[in-house]
Protein backbone atom coordinates (compact mmCIF):
# COMPACT_ATOMS: atom_id res chain seq x y z
CA UNK A 1 0.00 0.00 0.00
CA UNK A 2 2.79 2.34 1.00
CA UNK A 3 4.67 1.45 -2.19
CA UNK A 4 1.53 2.11 -4.24
CA UNK A 5 1.17 5.57 -2.65
CA UNK A 6 4.79 6.39 -3.42
CA UNK A 7 4.25 5.35 -7.04
CA UNK A 8 1.17 7.56 -7.28
CA UNK A 9 3.10 10.51 -5.85
CA UNK A 10 5.83 10.00 -8.42
CA UNK A 11 3.23 9.99 -11.19
CA UNK A 12 1.66 13.11 -9.81
CA UNK A 13 5.06 14.84 -9.69
CA UNK A 14 5.58 13.94 -13.32
CA UNK A 15 2.14 15.27 -14.19
CA UNK A 16 2.83 18.56 -12.39
CA UNK A 17 6.21 18.85 -14.12
CA UNK A 18 4.58 18.24 -17.49
CA UNK A 19 1.87 20.81 -16.83
CA UNK A 20 4.42 23.42 -15.78
CA UNK A 21 6.74 22.71 -18.71
CA UNK A 22 3.99 23.01 -21.29
CA UNK A 23 2.67 26.10 -19.52
CA UNK A 24 6.09 27.75 -19.86
CA UNK A 25 6.10 26.83 -23.51
CA UNK A 26 2.58 28.18 -23.76
CA UNK A 27 0.92 25.13 -25.32
CA UNK A 28 -1.17 22.29 -23.83
CA UNK A 29 -3.10 19.42 -25.35
CA UNK A 30 -6.84 19.70 -24.53
CA UNK A 31 -7.07 16.17 -23.10
CA UNK A 32 -4.05 16.75 -20.85
CA UNK A 33 -5.46 20.08 -19.75
CA UNK A 34 -8.72 18.44 -18.74
CA UNK A 35 -6.84 15.76 -16.84
CA UNK A 36 -4.80 18.45 -15.05
CA UNK A 37 -7.92 20.43 -14.19
CA UNK A 38 -9.59 17.40 -12.67
CA UNK A 39 -6.64 15.92 -10.78
CA UNK A 40 -4.25 18.76 -9.83
CA UNK A 41 -4.93 21.35 -7.16
CA UNK A 42 -4.05 25.06 -7.69
CA UNK A 43 -1.50 24.86 -4.84
CA UNK A 44 0.31 22.00 -6.59
CA UNK A 45 0.46 23.95 -9.85
CA UNK A 46 1.63 27.17 -8.17
CA UNK A 47 4.37 25.41 -6.20
CA UNK A 48 5.30 23.51 -9.37
CA UNK A 49 5.48 26.82 -11.23
CA UNK A 50 7.78 28.38 -8.64
CA UNK A 51 10.06 25.34 -8.67
CA UNK A 52 9.92 25.35 -12.48
CA UNK A 53 10.91 29.02 -12.60
CA UNK A 54 13.82 28.37 -10.22
CA UNK A 55 14.95 25.42 -12.35
CA UNK A 56 14.63 27.54 -15.48
CA UNK A 57 16.82 30.26 -13.98
CA UNK A 58 19.29 27.62 -12.71
CA UNK A 59 19.55 25.92 -16.09
CA UNK A 60 20.14 29.24 -17.82
CA UNK A 61 22.89 30.03 -15.32
CA UNK A 62 24.42 26.63 -15.93
CA UNK A 63 24.32 27.22 -19.67
CA UNK A 64 25.95 30.63 -19.21
CA UNK A 65 28.72 29.20 -17.04
CA UNK A 66 29.35 26.49 -19.66
CA UNK A 67 29.54 29.08 -22.43
CA UNK A 68 31.86 31.39 -20.49
CA UNK A 69 34.14 28.71 -19.00
Amino acid sequence: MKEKKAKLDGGKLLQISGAVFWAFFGVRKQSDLELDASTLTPAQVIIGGIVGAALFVGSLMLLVSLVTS
Partner: protein
Amino acid sequence: MAAVDHDIAHAHDDHHPTGLMRWIGATNHKDIGTMYLWFSFIMFLTGGVMALTIRAELFQPGIQIVNPELFNQLTTMHGLVMVFGAIMPAFVGFANWQIPMMIGAPDMAFARMNNWSFWLLVPAALLLISSFFVPGGAPAGGWTIYPPLSVQMGMGMDMAIFALHIMGAASIMGSINIITTVLNMRAPGMTLMKMPLFVWTWLITAYLLVLAMPVLAGAITMLLTDRNFGTNFFNAAGGGDPVMFQHIFWFFGHPEVYIMILPAFGIVSEIIPTFARKPLFGYSSMVYATASIAILSCIVWAHHMFTAGMPAAGQLFFMYATMLIAVPTGVKVFNWTATMWRGSMTFETPMLFAIGFIFLFTIGGFSGVICAIVPIDIQVQDTYYVIAHFHYVLVSGALFALFGGTYYWLPKWTGHMYDETLGKWHFWLSMFFFNLAFFVQHFLGLAGMPRRVPDYALQFADFNMISSIGAFGFGLTQLLFLYVVLKCIRGGEKAPASPWEGAKTLEWTLPSPAPYHSFETPPVVK
Protein backbone atom coordinates in the same frame (compact mmCIF):
# COMPACT_ATOMS: atom_id res chain seq x y z
CA MET B 1 -19.39 30.40 -23.58
CA ALA B 2 -22.18 32.62 -22.45
CA ALA B 3 -25.22 30.38 -22.46
CA VAL B 4 -27.26 32.17 -19.85
CA ASP B 5 -30.14 30.73 -17.86
CA HIS B 6 -31.50 33.99 -16.62
CA ASP B 7 -34.15 36.56 -17.43
CA ILE B 8 -31.94 39.58 -17.60
CA ALA B 9 -34.69 42.08 -18.28
CA HIS B 10 -35.96 41.82 -14.71
CA ALA B 11 -32.61 42.45 -13.15
CA HIS B 12 -32.13 45.94 -14.46
CA ASP B 13 -32.39 49.08 -12.48
CA ASP B 14 -31.44 52.29 -14.18
CA HIS B 15 -31.81 54.49 -11.14
CA HIS B 16 -28.59 56.40 -10.61
CA PRO B 17 -27.37 59.59 -8.92
CA THR B 18 -27.21 62.71 -11.03
CA GLY B 19 -25.13 65.86 -11.28
CA LEU B 20 -21.56 66.31 -10.19
CA MET B 21 -21.91 64.00 -7.20
CA ARG B 22 -22.61 61.11 -9.57
CA TRP B 23 -18.97 61.37 -10.60
CA ILE B 24 -17.28 62.56 -7.42
CA GLY B 25 -18.92 59.91 -5.28
CA ALA B 26 -19.10 57.30 -8.01
CA THR B 27 -19.10 53.69 -6.89
CA ASN B 28 -20.63 52.23 -10.05
CA HIS B 29 -18.07 50.35 -12.11
CA LYS B 30 -19.39 51.78 -15.37
CA ASP B 31 -19.18 55.38 -14.17
CA ILE B 32 -15.69 54.82 -12.80
CA GLY B 33 -14.69 53.07 -16.02
CA THR B 34 -15.96 56.04 -18.02
CA MET B 35 -13.96 58.45 -15.84
CA TYR B 36 -10.82 56.35 -16.27
CA LEU B 37 -11.26 56.33 -20.03
CA TRP B 38 -11.79 60.11 -20.30
CA PHE B 39 -8.93 60.77 -17.91
CA SER B 40 -6.60 58.60 -19.95
CA PHE B 41 -7.72 60.22 -23.21
CA ILE B 42 -7.02 63.69 -21.81
CA MET B 43 -3.60 62.51 -20.68
CA PHE B 44 -3.08 60.91 -24.12
CA LEU B 45 -3.74 64.27 -25.77
CA THR B 46 -1.46 66.01 -23.22
CA GLY B 47 1.38 63.55 -23.83
CA GLY B 48 0.62 63.77 -27.55
CA VAL B 49 1.08 67.54 -27.58
CA MET B 50 4.47 67.03 -25.90
CA ALA B 51 5.38 64.45 -28.56
CA LEU B 52 4.37 66.80 -31.36
CA THR B 53 6.44 69.61 -29.84
CA ILE B 54 9.41 67.20 -29.82
CA ARG B 55 8.74 66.23 -33.43
CA ALA B 56 8.31 69.88 -34.45
CA GLU B 57 11.72 70.64 -32.99
CA LEU B 58 13.21 67.64 -34.80
CA PHE B 59 11.56 68.53 -38.12
CA GLN B 60 14.88 69.96 -39.24
CA PRO B 61 18.38 70.23 -37.74
CA GLY B 62 19.17 73.12 -35.42
CA ILE B 63 17.32 74.57 -32.45
CA GLN B 64 14.10 76.21 -33.65
CA ILE B 65 11.19 75.90 -31.24
CA VAL B 66 12.23 74.82 -27.74
CA ASN B 67 15.48 75.20 -25.89
CA PRO B 68 17.43 72.02 -25.02
CA GLU B 69 16.37 72.15 -21.34
CA LEU B 70 12.68 72.23 -22.22
CA PHE B 71 13.25 69.57 -24.89
CA ASN B 72 14.63 67.21 -22.24
CA GLN B 73 11.66 67.96 -19.99
CA LEU B 74 9.30 67.20 -22.86
CA THR B 75 10.86 63.81 -23.70
CA THR B 76 10.79 62.83 -20.03
CA MET B 77 7.27 63.99 -19.37
CA HIS B 78 5.97 62.52 -22.62
CA GLY B 79 7.11 59.10 -21.40
CA LEU B 80 5.81 59.49 -17.86
CA VAL B 81 2.45 60.89 -18.96
CA MET B 82 1.86 58.25 -21.64
CA VAL B 83 2.89 55.30 -19.45
CA PHE B 84 1.34 56.26 -16.13
CA GLY B 85 -1.36 58.67 -17.25
CA ALA B 86 -2.62 57.32 -20.57
CA ILE B 87 -1.97 53.63 -21.27
CA MET B 88 -2.27 52.18 -17.76
CA PRO B 89 -5.44 54.07 -16.73
CA ALA B 90 -7.03 53.33 -20.11
CA PHE B 91 -6.70 49.60 -19.50
CA VAL B 92 -8.06 50.04 -15.96
CA GLY B 93 -11.01 51.84 -17.54
CA PHE B 94 -11.62 48.85 -19.78
CA ALA B 95 -11.27 46.54 -16.78
CA ASN B 96 -13.82 48.54 -14.82
CA TRP B 97 -16.35 48.55 -17.60
CA GLN B 98 -15.87 45.04 -18.83
CA ILE B 99 -14.73 42.67 -16.09
CA PRO B 100 -17.94 42.73 -14.01
CA MET B 101 -20.08 42.41 -17.13
CA MET B 102 -17.93 39.63 -18.58
CA ILE B 103 -17.98 37.49 -15.44
CA GLY B 104 -21.61 38.21 -14.55
CA ALA B 105 -20.87 40.27 -11.42
CA PRO B 106 -22.96 43.28 -10.36
CA ASP B 107 -19.95 45.53 -9.73
CA MET B 108 -16.34 45.53 -8.58
CA ALA B 109 -15.65 43.93 -5.20
CA PHE B 110 -14.59 47.13 -3.40
CA ALA B 111 -16.70 49.87 -4.93
CA ARG B 112 -15.52 52.71 -2.68
CA MET B 113 -11.87 51.75 -3.06
CA ASN B 114 -12.51 51.81 -6.78
CA ASN B 115 -13.62 55.43 -6.48
CA TRP B 116 -10.53 56.24 -4.42
CA SER B 117 -8.22 54.53 -6.95
CA PHE B 118 -9.55 56.75 -9.70
CA TRP B 119 -9.69 60.05 -7.86
CA LEU B 120 -6.10 59.64 -6.63
CA LEU B 121 -5.04 59.88 -10.26
CA VAL B 122 -6.28 63.44 -10.67
CA PRO B 123 -4.05 65.13 -8.04
CA ALA B 124 -1.18 62.89 -9.20
CA ALA B 125 -1.61 64.06 -12.78
CA LEU B 126 -1.87 67.69 -11.68
CA LEU B 127 1.32 67.34 -9.64
CA LEU B 128 3.13 65.77 -12.57
CA ILE B 129 2.03 68.33 -15.14
CA SER B 130 2.45 71.36 -12.86
CA SER B 131 6.11 70.45 -12.38
CA PHE B 132 6.66 72.33 -15.67
CA PHE B 133 5.88 75.57 -13.86
CA VAL B 134 8.15 75.32 -10.81
CA PRO B 135 11.75 76.60 -10.61
CA GLY B 136 14.00 74.22 -12.54
CA GLY B 137 11.06 72.89 -14.53
CA ALA B 138 9.79 69.36 -14.96
CA PRO B 139 11.97 66.22 -14.61
CA ALA B 140 14.37 66.14 -17.54
CA GLY B 141 16.53 63.04 -17.14
CA GLY B 142 14.33 60.63 -19.09
CA TRP B 143 11.22 58.76 -17.94
CA THR B 144 13.48 56.23 -16.23
CA ILE B 145 14.57 58.99 -13.77
CA TYR B 146 18.08 57.60 -13.42
CA PRO B 147 20.43 59.09 -10.82
CA PRO B 148 22.65 61.05 -10.71
CA LEU B 149 20.56 63.41 -12.90
CA SER B 150 17.41 62.77 -10.91
CA VAL B 151 19.23 63.48 -7.64
CA GLN B 152 20.46 66.83 -8.93
CA MET B 153 17.23 68.27 -10.40
CA GLY B 154 14.93 70.90 -8.92
CA MET B 155 11.69 70.45 -7.04
CA GLY B 156 9.90 69.27 -10.18
CA MET B 157 11.57 65.92 -9.55
CA ASP B 158 10.09 65.72 -6.04
CA MET B 159 6.68 66.47 -7.50
CA ALA B 160 7.10 63.70 -10.04
CA ILE B 161 8.22 61.26 -7.33
CA PHE B 162 5.17 62.12 -5.25
CA ALA B 163 2.93 61.78 -8.31
CA LEU B 164 4.39 58.35 -9.09
CA HIS B 165 3.84 57.25 -5.50
CA ILE B 166 0.19 58.25 -5.69
CA MET B 167 -0.32 56.64 -9.08
CA GLY B 168 1.36 53.48 -7.80
CA ALA B 169 -0.94 53.36 -4.79
CA ALA B 170 -3.91 53.80 -7.12
CA SER B 171 -2.68 50.97 -9.33
CA ILE B 172 -2.17 48.62 -6.40
CA MET B 173 -5.66 49.32 -5.06
CA GLY B 174 -7.10 48.84 -8.53
CA SER B 175 -5.28 45.52 -8.84
CA ILE B 176 -6.47 44.24 -5.48
CA ASN B 177 -9.98 45.14 -6.58
CA ILE B 178 -9.64 43.29 -9.86
CA ILE B 179 -8.11 40.17 -8.28
CA THR B 180 -10.83 40.02 -5.62
CA THR B 181 -13.60 40.61 -8.15
CA VAL B 182 -12.39 37.95 -10.55
CA LEU B 183 -11.67 35.32 -7.91
CA ASN B 184 -14.81 35.83 -5.83
CA MET B 185 -17.58 37.29 -7.92
CA ARG B 186 -17.83 35.13 -11.02
CA ALA B 187 -21.31 33.97 -11.99
CA PRO B 188 -22.25 30.40 -11.05
CA GLY B 189 -20.84 28.04 -13.64
CA MET B 190 -18.10 30.39 -14.79
CA THR B 191 -15.03 28.42 -13.85
CA LEU B 192 -11.61 29.99 -14.28
CA MET B 193 -11.08 28.17 -17.55
CA LYS B 194 -14.38 29.50 -18.90
CA MET B 195 -13.44 33.11 -18.26
CA PRO B 196 -13.06 35.38 -21.28
CA LEU B 197 -9.41 35.89 -22.14
CA PHE B 198 -9.62 39.62 -21.44
CA VAL B 199 -10.47 38.76 -17.83
CA TRP B 200 -7.62 36.25 -17.66
CA THR B 201 -5.06 38.71 -19.00
CA TRP B 202 -6.23 41.33 -16.52
CA LEU B 203 -6.08 38.88 -13.61
CA ILE B 204 -2.45 38.09 -14.44
CA THR B 205 -1.69 41.78 -15.06
CA ALA B 206 -3.14 42.64 -11.65
CA TYR B 207 -0.78 40.19 -9.98
CA LEU B 208 2.13 41.71 -11.92
CA LEU B 209 1.08 45.18 -10.77
CA VAL B 210 0.96 44.11 -7.13
CA LEU B 211 4.43 42.65 -7.59
CA ALA B 212 6.02 45.50 -9.54
CA MET B 213 4.57 48.76 -8.23
CA PRO B 214 5.98 48.45 -4.69
CA VAL B 215 9.42 47.96 -6.24
CA LEU B 216 9.07 51.27 -8.06
CA ALA B 217 7.82 52.84 -4.84
CA GLY B 218 10.95 51.57 -3.06
CA ALA B 219 13.27 52.92 -5.75
CA ILE B 220 11.72 56.39 -5.84
CA THR B 221 11.54 56.56 -2.04
CA MET B 222 15.29 55.95 -1.89
CA LEU B 223 15.68 58.63 -4.56
CA LEU B 224 13.58 60.99 -2.46
CA THR B 225 15.69 60.44 0.65
CA ASP B 226 18.89 60.82 -1.38
CA ARG B 227 17.56 64.14 -2.62
CA ASN B 228 16.19 65.52 0.62
CA PHE B 229 17.45 63.64 3.67
CA GLY B 230 21.16 63.10 3.05
CA THR B 231 21.12 59.38 2.29
CA ASN B 232 23.47 57.97 -0.32
CA PHE B 233 21.71 54.97 -1.83
CA PHE B 234 22.58 56.05 -5.35
CA ASN B 235 25.33 58.61 -4.73
CA ALA B 236 28.70 57.12 -5.66
CA ALA B 237 30.55 59.86 -3.73
CA GLY B 238 28.78 58.73 -0.56
CA GLY B 239 29.38 55.04 -1.17
CA GLY B 240 26.11 54.43 -3.03
CA ASP B 241 25.61 52.92 -6.47
CA PRO B 242 23.68 54.64 -9.27
CA VAL B 243 23.55 51.36 -11.22
CA MET B 244 21.61 49.82 -8.33
CA PHE B 245 18.81 52.27 -9.14
CA GLN B 246 18.78 50.98 -12.70
CA HIS B 247 18.45 47.39 -11.49
CA ILE B 248 15.62 48.24 -9.11
CA PHE B 249 13.89 50.48 -11.63
CA TRP B 250 13.97 47.85 -14.37
CA PHE B 251 12.90 45.08 -12.00
CA PHE B 252 9.73 47.17 -11.94
CA GLY B 253 10.10 48.48 -15.49
CA HIS B 254 10.13 45.29 -17.46
CA PRO B 255 7.05 43.74 -15.85
CA GLU B 256 5.57 47.21 -16.45
CA VAL B 257 6.01 46.67 -20.18
CA TYR B 258 3.91 43.53 -19.90
CA ILE B 259 1.42 45.31 -17.65
CA MET B 260 0.84 47.57 -20.63
CA ILE B 261 0.61 44.82 -23.22
CA LEU B 262 -1.10 41.80 -21.57
CA PRO B 263 -4.53 43.49 -21.36
CA ALA B 264 -4.03 44.45 -25.02
CA PHE B 265 -3.56 40.75 -25.77
CA GLY B 266 -6.84 40.18 -23.93
CA ILE B 267 -8.74 42.74 -26.00
CA VAL B 268 -7.39 41.36 -29.27
CA SER B 269 -8.28 37.85 -28.11
CA GLU B 270 -11.90 38.98 -27.73
CA ILE B 271 -12.10 40.84 -31.04
CA ILE B 272 -10.53 38.28 -33.38
CA PRO B 273 -12.81 35.30 -32.56
CA THR B 274 -15.84 37.60 -32.89
CA PHE B 275 -15.02 38.80 -36.38
CA ALA B 276 -13.54 35.49 -37.53
CA ARG B 277 -16.72 33.82 -36.21
CA LYS B 278 -14.65 31.01 -34.70
CA PRO B 279 -13.74 30.22 -31.10
CA LEU B 280 -10.29 31.37 -30.05
CA PHE B 281 -7.76 28.78 -31.20
CA GLY B 282 -5.91 27.26 -28.23
CA TYR B 283 -7.74 29.08 -25.43
CA SER B 284 -5.89 27.22 -22.69
CA SER B 285 -2.57 27.78 -24.48
CA MET B 286 -3.33 31.48 -24.48
CA VAL B 287 -3.91 31.40 -20.71
CA TYR B 288 -0.71 29.45 -20.17
CA ALA B 289 1.27 31.70 -22.50
CA THR B 290 0.04 34.79 -20.65
CA ALA B 291 1.06 33.31 -17.30
CA SER B 292 4.47 32.25 -18.56
CA ILE B 293 5.09 35.67 -20.15
CA ALA B 294 4.27 37.21 -16.77
CA ILE B 295 6.73 34.95 -14.94
CA LEU B 296 9.49 35.38 -17.53
CA SER B 297 8.97 39.16 -17.51
CA CYS B 298 10.42 39.19 -13.98
CA ILE B 299 13.77 37.67 -14.97
CA VAL B 300 14.77 39.74 -17.99
CA TRP B 301 15.06 43.25 -16.55
CA ALA B 302 18.79 43.80 -17.10
CA HIS B 303 18.48 43.65 -20.90
CA HIS B 304 17.71 47.37 -20.52
CA MET B 305 21.17 47.85 -19.03
CA PHE B 306 23.59 45.89 -21.21
CA THR B 307 25.82 48.95 -21.57
CA ALA B 308 25.61 50.02 -17.92
CA GLY B 309 28.38 47.70 -16.83
CA MET B 310 27.73 44.02 -16.29
CA PRO B 311 29.80 40.82 -16.34
CA ALA B 312 29.63 38.80 -19.56
CA ALA B 313 27.83 36.02 -17.68
CA GLY B 314 25.10 38.49 -16.67
CA GLN B 315 24.75 39.75 -20.23
CA LEU B 316 24.42 36.19 -21.55
CA PHE B 317 21.86 35.21 -18.89
CA PHE B 318 19.62 38.17 -19.65
CA MET B 319 20.09 37.75 -23.39
CA TYR B 320 19.01 34.09 -23.29
CA ALA B 321 16.09 34.76 -20.96
CA THR B 322 14.89 37.66 -23.11
CA MET B 323 15.04 35.65 -26.30
CA LEU B 324 13.10 32.83 -24.66
CA ILE B 325 10.24 35.16 -23.71
CA ALA B 326 9.57 35.44 -27.44
CA VAL B 327 8.39 31.78 -27.40
CA PRO B 328 5.11 32.22 -25.46
CA THR B 329 4.59 35.56 -27.22
CA GLY B 330 5.01 33.77 -30.54
CA VAL B 331 2.48 31.15 -29.40
CA LYS B 332 -0.04 33.95 -29.01
CA VAL B 333 0.60 35.38 -32.46
CA PHE B 334 0.22 31.91 -33.99
CA ASN B 335 -3.00 31.31 -32.07
CA TRP B 336 -4.54 34.59 -33.28
CA THR B 337 -3.53 33.73 -36.82
CA ALA B 338 -4.92 30.20 -36.47
CA THR B 339 -8.18 31.65 -35.14
CA MET B 340 -8.55 33.67 -38.35
CA TRP B 341 -7.58 30.74 -40.56
CA ARG B 342 -10.64 29.70 -42.58
CA GLY B 343 -12.86 31.88 -40.45
CA SER B 344 -15.80 33.81 -41.91
CA MET B 345 -13.99 37.07 -41.45
CA THR B 346 -15.42 40.54 -41.79
CA PHE B 347 -13.40 43.67 -41.38
CA GLU B 348 -15.24 46.11 -39.17
CA THR B 349 -13.11 48.73 -37.43
CA PRO B 350 -12.34 46.70 -34.27
CA MET B 351 -11.10 43.82 -36.46
CA LEU B 352 -8.97 46.18 -38.54
CA PHE B 353 -7.29 47.48 -35.40
CA ALA B 354 -6.82 43.91 -34.11
CA ILE B 355 -5.17 42.80 -37.36
CA GLY B 356 -3.11 45.99 -37.41
CA PHE B 357 -2.09 45.14 -33.86
CA ILE B 358 -0.89 41.64 -34.79
CA PHE B 359 1.02 42.90 -37.82
CA LEU B 360 2.77 45.82 -36.13
CA PHE B 361 3.19 44.30 -32.68
CA THR B 362 5.01 41.41 -34.35
CA ILE B 363 7.41 43.92 -35.94
CA GLY B 364 7.93 45.46 -32.48
CA GLY B 365 8.45 42.00 -31.00
CA PHE B 366 11.06 41.08 -33.59
CA SER B 367 12.96 44.33 -33.13
CA GLY B 368 12.84 43.52 -29.41
CA VAL B 369 14.53 40.18 -30.02
CA ILE B 370 17.13 42.02 -32.10
CA CYS B 371 17.75 44.43 -29.20
CA ALA B 372 18.06 41.44 -26.86
CA ILE B 373 21.24 40.34 -28.63
CA VAL B 374 24.03 41.92 -26.60
CA PRO B 375 26.46 42.90 -29.38
CA ILE B 376 23.66 44.48 -31.38
CA ASP B 377 22.20 46.19 -28.34
CA ILE B 378 25.56 47.76 -27.57
CA GLN B 379 25.38 49.36 -31.04
CA VAL B 380 21.76 50.48 -30.95
CA GLN B 381 21.53 51.37 -27.24
CA ASP B 382 20.09 54.87 -26.76
CA THR B 383 19.51 55.33 -30.48
CA TYR B 384 16.29 55.86 -32.40
CA TYR B 385 16.17 52.12 -33.11
CA VAL B 386 15.09 51.60 -29.51
CA ILE B 387 12.55 54.42 -29.83
CA ALA B 388 11.13 52.75 -32.93
CA HIS B 389 11.04 49.36 -31.18
CA PHE B 390 9.08 50.39 -28.14
CA HIS B 391 6.69 52.61 -30.07
CA TYR B 392 5.81 49.61 -32.24
CA VAL B 393 5.05 47.72 -29.03
CA LEU B 394 3.27 50.46 -27.12
CA VAL B 395 1.54 52.50 -29.84
CA SER B 396 0.68 49.94 -32.49
CA GLY B 397 0.48 47.33 -29.71
CA ALA B 398 -1.20 48.75 -26.64
CA LEU B 399 -2.81 51.82 -28.22
CA PHE B 400 -4.18 50.03 -31.31
CA ALA B 401 -5.70 47.40 -29.01
CA LEU B 402 -7.28 50.20 -26.96
CA PHE B 403 -8.75 51.74 -30.12
CA GLY B 404 -10.00 48.35 -31.29
CA GLY B 405 -11.51 47.64 -27.88
CA THR B 406 -13.20 51.04 -27.82
CA TYR B 407 -14.87 50.48 -31.20
CA TYR B 408 -15.78 46.92 -30.17
CA TRP B 409 -17.52 47.88 -26.94
CA LEU B 410 -18.76 51.41 -27.81
CA PRO B 411 -22.18 50.07 -28.87
CA LYS B 412 -22.50 48.39 -25.45
CA TRP B 413 -21.31 51.48 -23.59
CA THR B 414 -23.32 54.11 -25.47
CA GLY B 415 -26.26 52.21 -26.97
CA HIS B 416 -25.38 53.57 -30.43
CA MET B 417 -23.39 52.23 -33.33
CA TYR B 418 -20.34 54.28 -34.17
CA ASP B 419 -19.80 55.65 -37.68
CA GLU B 420 -18.18 52.69 -39.44
CA THR B 421 -16.87 54.74 -42.35
CA LEU B 422 -15.15 57.24 -40.09
CA GLY B 423 -13.87 54.41 -37.89
CA LYS B 424 -12.22 52.82 -40.92
CA TRP B 425 -10.74 56.18 -41.89
CA HIS B 426 -9.37 56.42 -38.38
CA PHE B 427 -7.75 53.03 -38.71
CA TRP B 428 -6.19 53.52 -42.13
CA LEU B 429 -4.93 57.02 -41.37
CA SER B 430 -3.49 55.80 -38.05
CA MET B 431 -1.86 52.85 -39.78
CA PHE B 432 -0.33 55.01 -42.51
CA PHE B 433 0.88 57.86 -40.33
CA PHE B 434 2.09 55.59 -37.52
CA ASN B 435 4.39 53.74 -39.90
CA LEU B 436 5.47 56.99 -41.52
CA ALA B 437 6.42 58.34 -38.10
CA PHE B 438 8.12 55.31 -36.62
CA PHE B 439 9.35 52.93 -39.33
CA VAL B 440 11.95 55.42 -40.52
CA GLN B 441 13.20 55.73 -36.95
CA HIS B 442 14.67 52.23 -37.33
CA PHE B 443 16.92 53.62 -40.09
CA LEU B 444 17.79 56.67 -38.00
CA GLY B 445 18.81 54.45 -35.11
CA LEU B 446 20.84 52.09 -37.27
CA ALA B 447 22.59 55.13 -38.73
CA GLY B 448 23.48 56.19 -35.20
CA MET B 449 21.11 59.01 -34.29
CA PRO B 450 20.96 59.17 -30.47
CA ARG B 451 17.65 59.56 -28.61
CA ARG B 452 16.81 62.56 -26.38
CA VAL B 453 18.66 65.15 -28.49
CA PRO B 454 17.07 68.39 -29.76
CA ASP B 455 19.54 68.79 -32.61
CA TYR B 456 21.23 66.33 -34.94
CA ALA B 457 23.74 65.97 -37.75
CA LEU B 458 22.66 66.83 -41.30
CA GLN B 459 22.64 63.24 -42.56
CA PHE B 460 19.60 62.48 -40.38
CA ALA B 461 17.53 65.36 -41.76
CA ASP B 462 15.37 63.60 -44.37
CA PHE B 463 14.19 60.73 -42.18
CA ASN B 464 13.49 63.13 -39.32
CA MET B 465 11.35 65.27 -41.58
CA ILE B 466 9.40 62.21 -42.74
CA SER B 467 9.00 61.07 -39.13
CA SER B 468 7.70 64.46 -38.03
CA ILE B 469 5.15 64.58 -40.86
CA GLY B 470 4.00 61.11 -39.83
CA ALA B 471 3.77 62.10 -36.17
CA PHE B 472 1.64 65.17 -36.93
CA GLY B 473 -0.59 63.11 -39.21
CA PHE B 474 -0.98 60.46 -36.50
CA GLY B 475 -1.70 63.08 -33.82
CA LEU B 476 -4.33 64.89 -35.89
CA THR B 477 -5.94 61.55 -36.81
CA GLN B 478 -6.70 61.02 -33.14
CA LEU B 479 -8.97 64.08 -33.24
CA LEU B 480 -11.01 62.08 -35.74
CA PHE B 481 -11.22 59.31 -33.13
CA LEU B 482 -12.49 61.85 -30.58
CA TYR B 483 -15.09 63.03 -33.09
CA VAL B 484 -16.27 59.46 -33.81
CA VAL B 485 -16.61 58.71 -30.09
CA LEU B 486 -18.47 61.96 -29.34
CA LYS B 487 -20.75 61.41 -32.32
CA CYS B 488 -21.50 57.90 -31.08
CA ILE B 489 -22.27 59.12 -27.56
CA ARG B 490 -24.61 61.81 -28.85
CA GLY B 491 -26.65 59.55 -31.12
CA GLY B 492 -26.63 57.37 -34.17
CA GLU B 493 -28.11 54.05 -35.15
CA LYS B 494 -29.53 52.22 -32.14
CA ALA B 495 -27.28 49.34 -31.13
CA PRO B 496 -28.88 45.94 -30.50
CA ALA B 497 -27.88 43.90 -27.44
CA SER B 498 -25.33 42.06 -29.55
CA PRO B 499 -24.31 44.02 -32.64
CA TRP B 500 -21.60 41.49 -33.50
CA GLU B 501 -22.98 38.10 -34.54
CA GLY B 502 -19.83 36.28 -33.47
CA ALA B 503 -19.69 37.78 -29.96
CA LYS B 504 -20.18 35.15 -27.25
CA THR B 505 -19.26 36.72 -23.93
CA LEU B 506 -21.74 37.63 -21.19
CA GLU B 507 -21.86 41.40 -21.69
CA TRP B 508 -23.61 40.89 -25.04
CA THR B 509 -26.58 39.30 -23.26
CA LEU B 510 -27.29 42.69 -21.67
CA PRO B 511 -29.23 45.34 -23.56
CA SER B 512 -27.34 48.25 -25.15
CA PRO B 513 -26.50 50.57 -23.56
CA ALA B 514 -25.67 48.35 -20.62
CA PRO B 515 -28.04 49.22 -17.78
CA TYR B 516 -26.63 51.18 -14.86
CA HIS B 517 -26.99 48.16 -12.59
CA SER B 518 -26.40 44.87 -14.33
CA PHE B 519 -26.33 41.24 -13.18
CA GLU B 520 -27.74 42.05 -9.74
CA THR B 521 -28.99 38.49 -9.91
CA PRO B 522 -26.06 36.51 -11.26
CA PRO B 523 -26.61 34.69 -14.54
CA VAL B 524 -25.93 30.97 -14.64
CA VAL B 525 -23.28 30.03 -17.15
CA LYS B 526 -23.70 26.57 -18.62
